[in-house]
């Protein structure tokens, strides 16, 4: 038996040997030890009394956990399309060359590795990277040089200049949500209305879930409240992983009072005493600040037992960190992740409000939805419902990035037109806008009179602007890679379909595609939509579908002249043989340059 590492054992004990915390334990162990060794796996498994395979399942599921050494400095460049447009690849290559590294390969002295990752929620201030999970936005060549110097000098991250880690809110337009409510005011208002009264106001407001699906929040709360059982949970979905979105980052940074009190109000209405904030790993920079606020709330009687003196209003909040996994934004996957499992979606029914976290009724609400609850507590549902449209009430935060003068967070009443938003953010000569992130829709100028609303263009808030010169094929290809990387692997159509889609897009990009591939893409997209287990697979082909429908020439000009080019590339097929024989001379290649 390997000897238990005292550092790891201490972390396991800190979490009271509770297996639901395995992801948190692995995150902390990696922060201390730079990676998760087989010995760490053994120590965690035996400490938690779970099979080692359960620990390995979690370890291998999340992108930011490493089962092999990746260096003391682990630098990950965000690789969303907006980072691409802002030149992240040139910066990435500059860093690789300065540190004499290959992508994803740790330096021979074990000091550093540099690689790419999915969107990190910094599209308004990209290109961005994560240094050991800490965000560094606004990258320039000069910043890259500075980071390289710090790495070479082996400066501890805590001693890096604080300005490197500065994340701006970039709030450009405010209405009622981006307006502070003084601590305790919303709680008092909710208590004054009573549990049933507050629920009635929620229903009257017709607040719909801001994660994009638009389910009425009051109906969800009512379902949880009436579900059998004594224990209930509130989960704040702060895992905004949709490429192009970052509005929750701003709410959590500057309006956390509203988010946290919104959670408490949800607990009050539903009869839950415990809440979790599932915070995406990319937002680690917000963790300490949020924890301080939770502690202050507890000290000030706004969390804990008998909140604001109301007997029986007991509620507390815990932060649970994610570790890189887009799928964990799906409600049932998130609850699995909270339970210390891989973030795979569950089979529905039963719904979360019946059988959720640890089998108990659970409400999973978006950060923005919960923040809105405080507004409804204070002003009542009828006033709230006066804003927006009849079926999309209230305001919506939009995360704007890409080709515009003023990227950032904008708050609008539902019903605002795309054209108005583009005008406000200073977007000129726009060829298309991707709304709702990689899983959303691509709209062209003839559609800019359409409105942001559940009944027209629904969105969780991502709004990426593409200027006239942008190649929409590459936009779709970036998203195809994203989905192949983020598919959880649970169901056949998504696990295989996202890979097929990516491979076809790559074949077309190489100039080897034909009309056949274009038609095949359509079939695969439709297939994934119809047969996938969850929303990830259902929407994984949206970007490719829209690009095909609206930017056909971007595909056509890449197509091979013939009807079909075989998939096999003889030169590439020789690669395994070259690898096995250790040869790379001219004779080991099909044809040499110029022959």
């Amino acid at each position: 038996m390997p000897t238990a590492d005292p550092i790891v054992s201490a972390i396991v004990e800190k979490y009271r040997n509770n297996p639901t915390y395995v992801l948190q334990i692995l995150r902390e162990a990696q922060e201390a030890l730079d990676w998760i060794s087989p010995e760490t796996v053994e120590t965690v498994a035996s400490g938690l009394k779970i099979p080692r395979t359960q620990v390995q399942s979690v370890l291998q599921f999340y992108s930011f956990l490493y089962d092999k050494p990746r260096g003391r400095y682990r630098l990950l460049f965000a690789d969303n399309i907006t980072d691409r447009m802002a030149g992240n690849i040139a910066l990435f290559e500059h860093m690789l060359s300065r540190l004499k590294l290959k992508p994803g390969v740790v330096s021979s002295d074990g000091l550093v590795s540099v690689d790419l990752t999915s969107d990190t929620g910094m599209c308004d201030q990209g290109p961005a990277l994560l240094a050991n999970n800490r965000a560094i936005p606004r990258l320039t060549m000069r910043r890259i040089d500075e980071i390289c110097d710090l790495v070479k000098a082996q400066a501890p991250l805590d001693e890096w200049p604080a300005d490197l880690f500065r994340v701006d809110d970039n709030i450009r337009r405010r209405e009622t949500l981006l307006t502070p409510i003084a601590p305790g005011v919303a709680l008092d208002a909710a208590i004054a209305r009573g549990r049933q009264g507050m629920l009635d106001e929620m229903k009257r407001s017709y607040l719909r879930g801001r994660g994009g699906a638009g389910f009425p929040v009051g109906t969800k709360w009512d379902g949880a409240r009436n579900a059998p059982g004594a224990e209930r949970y509130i989960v704040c979905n702060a895992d905004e992983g949709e490429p192009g979105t970052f509005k929750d980052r701003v709410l959590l940074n500057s309006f956390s009072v509203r988010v946290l009190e919104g959670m408490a109000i949800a607990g009050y209405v539903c009869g839950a005493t415990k809440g979790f904030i599932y915070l995406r790993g990319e937002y680690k920079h917000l963790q300490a600040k949020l924890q301080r606020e939770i502690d202050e709330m507890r000290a000030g009687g706004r969390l804990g037992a008998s909140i604001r003196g109301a007997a029986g209003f007991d509620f507390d909040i815990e932060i649970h960190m994610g570790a890189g996994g887009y799928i964990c934004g799906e409600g049932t996957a998130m609850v699995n992740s909270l339970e210390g499992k891989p973030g795979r979606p569950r089979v529905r029914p039963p719904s979360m409000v019946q059988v959720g976290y640890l089998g108990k009724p659970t409400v999973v609400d978006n950060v923005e939805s919960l923040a809105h609850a405080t507004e409804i507590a204070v002003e009542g549902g009828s006033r709230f419902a006066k804003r927006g449209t009849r079926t999309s009430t209230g305001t919506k935060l939009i995360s704007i990035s890409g080709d515009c003068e003023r990227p950032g967070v904008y708050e609008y009443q539902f019903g605002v037109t795309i054209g108005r938003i583009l005008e406000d953010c200073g977007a000129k000569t726009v060829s298309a806008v991707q709304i709702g992130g990689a899983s959303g829709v691509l709209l062209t100028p003839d559609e800019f009179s359409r409105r942001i609303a559940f009944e027209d263009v629904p969105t969780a808030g991502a709004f990426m602007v593409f200027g006239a010169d942008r190649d929409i094929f590459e936009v779709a290809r970036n998203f195809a890679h994203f989905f192949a990387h983020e598919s959880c692997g649970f169901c056949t159509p998504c696990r295989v379909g996202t890979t097929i889609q990516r491979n076809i897009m790559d074949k077309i990009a190489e100039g080897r595609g034909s009309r056949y591939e274009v038609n095949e893409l359509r079939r695969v997209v439709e297939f994934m939509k119809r047969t996938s287990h969850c929303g990830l697979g259902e929407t994984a082909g949206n970007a490719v579908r829209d690009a095909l429908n609206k930017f056909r020439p971007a595909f056509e000009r890449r197509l091979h002249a013939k009807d079909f080019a075989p998939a096999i590339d003889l030169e590439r097929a020789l690669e395994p043989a070259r690898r096995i024989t250790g040869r790379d001379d001219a004779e080991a290649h099909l044809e040499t340059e110029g022959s």
Partner: protein
Amino acid sequence: MAETTFTIDEQPIPFTPGQTILEAAKAAGIYIPHLCYHPEFKAHGGCKMCTVLVNGRTQTACTQKAAAGQEVDVDTPELNAMRRTLVQMLFIEGNHFCPGCEKSGACQLQALGYEYEMMSPHFVELFPERNIDASHPDVLIEFNRCVLCELCVRASRDIDHKDVFAIAGRGQDAKLIINSPTGKLGDSALAVTDRAVQVCPVGAIIVKRVGFATAPIGERLYDKNPISAEVESCEIPEAR
């Protein structure tokens, strides 16, 4: 009672409350294809072979409860084409070479390929690089053939109480892993008599020395009858 029926392809099917569509269909002698489902275990719902239309919406029959008045479509050209595509996806995702496989003729993936008239793999093969684990004295694991159905995971956890198997990794990196200090099957608690050894629907978990010593290929279970003939019992056939 009249209210406890639903229809499959317009035919009335009785059910008892709590039964899934798949269970009720099976009891009525109607075949709904499946790969990751097994009556002994909690439904998984991942392979999607049992996808049917319930009142026009796609659902997995192994997880969806039967309800009075439901109209379920099972055997339609569109659904069967969809099942063929699923089988093709499973084929190209792994490395499946039926002529050399010990499970040929008793393999559910192969049988589903025949059932749904899969005449070619259609998609470009991914040819993943996967290993074989022959470290156990009696059992071989051929990871090239694993379809991630999790039946061995469930059997080892729920029946054998050994937790020998688990799925790790995401997307195309998803793979079966083994609970032992070395990650090798030979160092795990697995015994050849374990239920987990018997439930593999494909040729991924193979008992050594019996693969070709039983009925010859051509005279095995699905060589004699198509997989759709198997509605009475869902027992996973052994290769003999």
